[in-house]
């Protein structure tokens, strides 16, 4: 029966959103992980989403979502002058990750809402199928 695919679709959406939530958690946790070497410092990570389907003409009716990969934000880290910090380099600078906390909070809310959306889709699909099973009783 074709409607079982809804569980795959909504499930793929939930999995993708939880990867996004994971990267957000990782970024927020490391927002203050400073380092004395700009090459060693943590870089913000973001997932890249991609629809799983070829096109309209081939098998395009149902499209789940997959995480194509996770990329690191290439923006340079912020240099902070903290000569007292034991991690500081010879010039007295430490380097903070390029994590934008406000952006991450927004990402977190958006990911959580999208996750809830997929859960609702799955619940509704389940109820519809159970109702179909009870047909004629």
């Amino acid at each position, binding site marked *: 029966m074709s409607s079982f695919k809804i569980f795959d679709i909504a499930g793929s959406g939930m999995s*993708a959103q939880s990867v996004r939530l994971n990267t957000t958690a990782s970024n927020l946790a490391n927002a203050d992980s400073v380092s004395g070497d700009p090459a060693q410092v943590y870089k913000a990570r973001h997932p890249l989403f991609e*629809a799983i389907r070829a096109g309209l003409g*081939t098998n395009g009716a*149902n499209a789940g979502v997959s995480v194509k990969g996770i990329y690191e934000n290439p923006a340079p880290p912020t240099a902070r002058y903290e000569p007292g910090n034991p991690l500081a380099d010879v010039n007295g600078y430490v380097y903070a990750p390029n994590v934008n906390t406000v952006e991450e909070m927004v990402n977190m809310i958006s990911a959580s809402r999208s996750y809830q959306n997929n859960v609702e889709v799955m619940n509704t699909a389940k109820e519809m199928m159970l109702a179909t099973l009870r047909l004629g009783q």
Partner: protein
Amino acid sequence: MPMKLDAYLGVHATALKVRSQRTEVIAANLANADTPNYRARDIDFKAALAEAGSPNAGVHLSTTRAGHISNSPVNGVPAGELKYRVPLAPALDGNTVDTQLEQAAFAENSVRYQATLQFLSSKFRGLMTAITGQ
């Protein structure tokens, strides 16, 4: 005289099928609400139902070369009835899913699915009454 069950159930059996396909398409839109370059789609329900019920159902153009565009059904949905949504405000990343609109369409579709189920259910109940005579 043998009774034709398909004719007795009328349009509802086909409607249930198209509704469940539409649920799938809208679920895919919602799952891809954050996917760059994803274009939201929907089924033209009226056309899909008419197509499924017409005597020409199952008649399709044949594709004899690689570049030909097929109009054969995609997972049971006639390809012509699966259409891209016209975006009200497309996002910069090329995504055209309007989550609120899709949620509303999903809710509407599931209510109508259940209405169709009710119709089918009462058809069956009527049949049972006729059989048992009670």
